[in-house]
């Protein structure tokens, strides 16, 4: 089935912006999307993967290693010339077994030839790409455990079934879920760089626009894709430019101070919030092609970067977003 073009997605600007930022700076730590079903979460995440410039990887390498990876993981990585391949996008189903996720002993080869071979799992496939987990809040605990470990360390260590394998697994984690159906473990939530809340659009015009776009895409997927190819191409170039620009941007001291003040004002725990806020502001500036990182970038990205880091108060009904907006107003007028 043809995928829906990213640029054709109507509305949901905060989510789209967060996804683009995560694409510009994959080290930010991914995006968590909170919201109801049918708000375009999966569509946007899948569409994004196709928008990214292809990666160069060792041919035949089951992990899609880059040259640098190959030096570190020479024991597991294949050999061969470098070839371009599309950015991997892995959809992890909720009911996935541990074997499937981390990889397991290749039974067939073991039985046939007594050979102990590792069959890579979903984590291997997602290396250098995206790992998308819909309804991540319903994911089983032991899977969350191993995801946390791999997301933190950037490599997957398998020590079971007589296997001892270590392979790189760095991916942008994209999770989505509805908080009404279950909460996310705080440890996992903390791993996400950005989080956004999406709602079903309430305006009649937007809803009509969505219905129109979807109908058009269903009728003539190829034509629809061709129609939006120009727009998608623009975004692709924007991401590529942003990626190139990113290392050249250094936030100034006054901005660091702003970030620290804001985090203090909203009561975001730990240093991770500040660092993420800074880096997200930098990625946004790079994406927008700005010459320097400015306060406006910081303010624009603050809700996404901090929303999920506020200390939880059960008795406080005010939403996190409102608390952040209030703090921004108090701090910066």
């Amino acid at each position, binding site marked *: 089935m043809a995928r829906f073009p990213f640029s054709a997605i109507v509305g949901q600007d905060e989510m789209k912006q967060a996804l683009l930022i995560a694409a510009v700076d994959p080290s930010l730590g991914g995006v968590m999307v909170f919201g109801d079903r049918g708000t375009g979460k999966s569509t946007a995440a899948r569409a994004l993967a196709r928008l990214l410039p292809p990666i160069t990887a060792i041919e035949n390498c089951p992990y899609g290693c880059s040259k640098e990876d190959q030096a570190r993981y020479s024991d597991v990585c294949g050999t061969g010339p470098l070839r371009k391949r599309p950015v991997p996008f892995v959809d992890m189903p909720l009911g996935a077994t541990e074997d499937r996720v981390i990889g397991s002993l290749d039974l067939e080869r073991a039985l046939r030839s007594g050979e102990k071979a590792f069959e890579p799992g979903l984590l291997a496939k997602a290396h250098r790409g995206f790992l998308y987990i819909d309804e991540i809040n319903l994911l089983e605990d032991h899977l969350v455990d*191993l995801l946390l*470990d791999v997301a933190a360390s950037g490599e997957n260590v398998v020590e079971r079934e007589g296997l001892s394998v270590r392979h790189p697994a760095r991916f942008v984690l994209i999770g989505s879920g509805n908080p009404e159906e279950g909460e996310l473990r705080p440890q996992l939530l903390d791993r996400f760089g950005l989080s956004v809340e999406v709602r079903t659009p309430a305006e009649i015009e937007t809803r009509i626009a969505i219905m129109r776009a979807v109908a058009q895409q269903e009728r003539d997927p190829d034509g629809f894709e061709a129609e939006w190819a120009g727009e998608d191409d623009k975004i692709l170039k924007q991401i590529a430019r942003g990626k190139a620009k990113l290392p050249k941007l250094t936030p100034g001291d006054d901005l660091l101070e702003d970030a620290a003040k804001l985090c203090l004002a909203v009561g975001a725990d730990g240093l991770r919030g500040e660092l993420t806020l800074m880096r997200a502001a930098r990625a946004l500036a790079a994406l927008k092609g700005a010459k320097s990182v400015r306060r406006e970038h910081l303010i624009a990205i603050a809700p996404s970067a901090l929303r999920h880091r506020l200390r939880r108060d059960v008795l406080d009904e005010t939403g996190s977003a409102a608390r952040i907006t209030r703090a921004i107003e108090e701090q910066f007028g």
Partner: protein
Amino acid sequence: MTTPASSDPLEDASLAASLFASAPSLFGGVVLRGASPARDALVAELQRVFAQFEKPLRRLPGHVDDDRLLGGIDIATSLATRRTVRSTGVIEECEGGALIVPMAERVEPGTAGRLAQALDEGGSAPALILLDDAHEADDAPPQSLLERCAFHCELGASRLWQVATLRSFGNLDEVAALDDAALEALAATAQALGVASVRPLIFAGSAARAHAALEGRSTVIDTDLAAAVRLVLAPRATRMPPMEEPPEEEQSEPPPPPESETTPDDPGEQQSPGDAPLEEMLVEAAKAAIPADLLAALAQGAAPRRVTGGGTGKRRKSGLRGKPLGARQGMPTGGKRLALIDTLRAAVPWQAVRRKEANAGDDTPILMRKEDLRVRRFEDKAARVTIFAVDASGSAAAARLAEAKGAVELMLAQAYVTRSEVALVAFRGDCAELLLPPTRSLTRARRALSELPGGGGTPLAMGLDAVRECADAVQSKGRTPSLVVLTDGRANIGRDGQPGRKQAGEDAMASAAAIARAGYDGIVIDISARAGPEGRNLAEAMGARFLALPRGDARAIAGAVETLQPGREAA
């Protein structure tokens, strides 16, 4: 780059890491609490230092199995080469080095036991770097491992993200052993801090000498002892040091009245007056190093964090997911996975006999029979579901419904942290209803609660029946229910919906007995203004614990339920 605060937790942690990296097996391990950029940097630096010293350092994944941990016969290779090939385990492979244990609070007790055993055997067993990501007090790495790691560092609050190069010392033998005065001072300090175990004391002694070695001294001086106390003893404190005048910049509250057990200790310690200044100095050093949250908890007389069953329910076996258990005989059908190694292991002893039977030569591949097949089993923790039954009748509601709501909300927050689920039953007037089926959602629970009206009669029997039905449903799904009933126990509506105190009371007792027969864990909280005998009788009939809270507030109820948590298993 912001200027670092003068006493960032990372500084002491780096010092601990320096000592640890120079002599991993001497110190057993280091616990790094709190995910933070500082910790990531420190772990990276440790990795660099270990690589530089050519000591092995590996990550130990949580799903490691025994074969890979301890080593065993490598069946596949053994069969292929026709001789016994032993495979080494991670513990053996990392001798002289260390293992990084990520998410140490989630380590299986079995794995923890094997690691602890390896450490106890001494020699060159790998030391441990425990990364503890626990977010709440009830969650902590296994005590067996914490005890065997010399250094405990709290890095969650660190404001730094870069770490200085770790230093190292040469030969510890060049440092003289601790003299009696130093030993006495350490022992007295440990006692003052309520550190009962001797192991930390031994670690402290080694740490003092290592610190001296690091500074290039051949004898241990006060600074070294202070560092040892700060790094090893202070994080393990279980009580406030019985000394006057807490430092002003910390808690402004006065020190708590010394616990009865500490007072008799003091005269004993002060018999050797020569040591008093040194001990005082050490206790002072310790006090400054006790983490703020621990200090606050200690000041309230609360016990430090402990490991308990937390939010998980009974364990159940599963063929599909969970932590790996041993294998058992069976067909790999229905999604069950073949346990290859165990299958081969089962088949190997019969090969000679089967070959003879089948008249097969030596070159035939291994002869398998159906009974050799082994499938893998996993242990799946059943989620715990706490079912709240709230009496919203006029008699109970008038004064207490708001408090009960507040308590339920607080317990919900707790439940979300411990990953258990919550259900809510309310009874009033002539009906009981399941307001909230088992859920993890705070948002929904809060809404259901705020919409809960009060007033009307007390159909206690109906409420208890609804709770039991909900518990049955929960159990049939393989989860473990526990019941919390908030009521005044004064039933006045019978099971048939007719008013009448006598009949209602009998019905309620019958319903309570049914719960007792089902064997569900529970607690009855009497929320009437003046507790009568009804609540206690009800609890007895239900086989549940009883708690009267005539003047409680939300937090008191939540606190009480937490300590009396039903469903907390002895195992």
